[in-house]
């Protein structure tokens, strides 16, 4: 990883479907074909029933902030011009957790239980990726 360049998203065999869906502005997570439970991040086996049969399931792009932090100084040169920014841990309305960033915020506006929604934005070199925005 070279210094100053944003860490690259490296999809794996089991996560490729997530990033492919992003290209179509769809948010998908793994769904166990046997016990029907949703899971994220992608993994080989269903931790509940150990089935490896899995399909991609589109979830609603909305959720509520479970917790967050506001980064006020950059820990990485690629974010030198981006502070302050929020990192939010989100309970999605369909029951999985996601983490994402919210740029261009007033830190006071970010609150636990606050509503957020995913929007797909072009990240240089990565294509469309999910970013969060506050929903008022």
């Amino acid at each position, binding site marked *: 990883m070279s210094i100053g360049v944003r860490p690259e998203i490296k999809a794996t065999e089991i996560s490729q479907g997530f990033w492919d869906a992003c290209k179509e502005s769809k948010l998908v997570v793994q769904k166990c074909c046997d016990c029907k439970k949703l899971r994220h991040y992608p993994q080989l086996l269903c931790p509940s029933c150990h089935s490896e049969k899995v399909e991609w399931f589109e979830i609603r792009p909305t959720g509520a902030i479970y*917790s967050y*932090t506001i980064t*006020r*100084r950059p820990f990485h040169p690629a974010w030198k011009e981006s502070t302050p920014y929020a*990192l939010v*841990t989100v309970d999605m309305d369909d029951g999985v957790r996601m983490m994402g960033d919210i740029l261009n915020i007033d830190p006071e506006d970010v609150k*636990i239980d606050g509503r957020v929604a995913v929007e797909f934005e072009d990240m240089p070199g990565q294509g469309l990726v999910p970013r969060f925005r506050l929903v008022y």
Partner: protein
Amino acid sequence: MSLSGGCVIAGIGQTPFTRGTEKSTVGLHLDAALEAIADAGLKPSDIDGVMPNELAGTIAEDFIVNLGLENVTFSSTMRHGGASLLSAVKSACLAVHTGVAKHVLLVAGRRGFSQQRMSKASEGTIPPHPLFREFNEFESPFGNTAPLQWFAPAAMRHMHEFGTTSEQLGRIALTCREHANLNPRALMHDKKMTMEDYLASPMIADPYRKFDCSLETDGATAFVITSAERGRDLKKAGVPILGLGEGHGTPPTSMTHKRDMTKVEGIEQAGKQAFEMAGLKPRDISSVQLYDAFTWVVLSTLEDLGFCQKGEGGAFVESGVLGLNGGLPLNTSGGLLSEGHCSGANLLSEAVRQLRGEVEPNRQISNCKNILISGEGHFHEGAVAILGRPV
């Protein structure tokens, strides 16, 4: 066949803690290792087990070559981040207890200031670990690039659910600082801190300020573990290892997916095992040396180990109980926050010194019987050890 009391810490060695060093990481480790071996009254050739530390990137062969070890029958490296040292203690005890090795050398610490700065983790200062695969794919590309950021939401959620305050986190920083002010080894020995200083330190990743963070430190600490029986014939009375535990939480690969972010689940699991093995309860503990990479981890650890109820950690730390004469002295060396972050190993060495009665008289814990030590690594994995008085 219980492991409790079967093994002892026979020797400790430690380099000075500095911000800047001419030594290589291996060089620091060898200095600490030789001192620990001598402290135990052993010769390097007595060492037949070697446990290097994951965070330093050292390997058993570094010690075999440089110390001329010809009889190594056991080597292993635990890979639980900051919990690695204490889970290595458990592994060493298993090796000794089963006769696989007689004298196991453990070494930890890094050039945390000169080379492996955690604040620059995104630049590759943490050795690569497959555990970060999902984190690297789904979180760091969005700006979650340093440990402070991945731990901050846990503290934030705890504050939200239980009303924990910045001042309560500050009490932990101040307690460690007061103890460091008594410890000539501590990086912050000469630097006082007030609550005003704490609150005025810059917010870095809410709710964490600069003074919630441990110190990027150069240094190494080493231990020799042997059987209680063999320990009786060595230079100093061995410090018995009474309880050990290790926990990984669910899932250990992600902070985001913790069902309950307000606890350090790995430490909760490890604590139950360690207390059970030792046959002890929190009230039997004279002092706690708790992994304090960041302040909130200490507050949660006190709750997770049962020293107070979940959610009551804030009031507990404000009560003054954690001071040197408060009843449950915390991090009497100054801890990672104010002595130095030696991959958590200085918490264990401090416990050994206190139980041996080897610290400066003005900071000796009176009537010190059992000391509990914790380690936290990666995304809330944990390890716990309980040491007893030398016999």
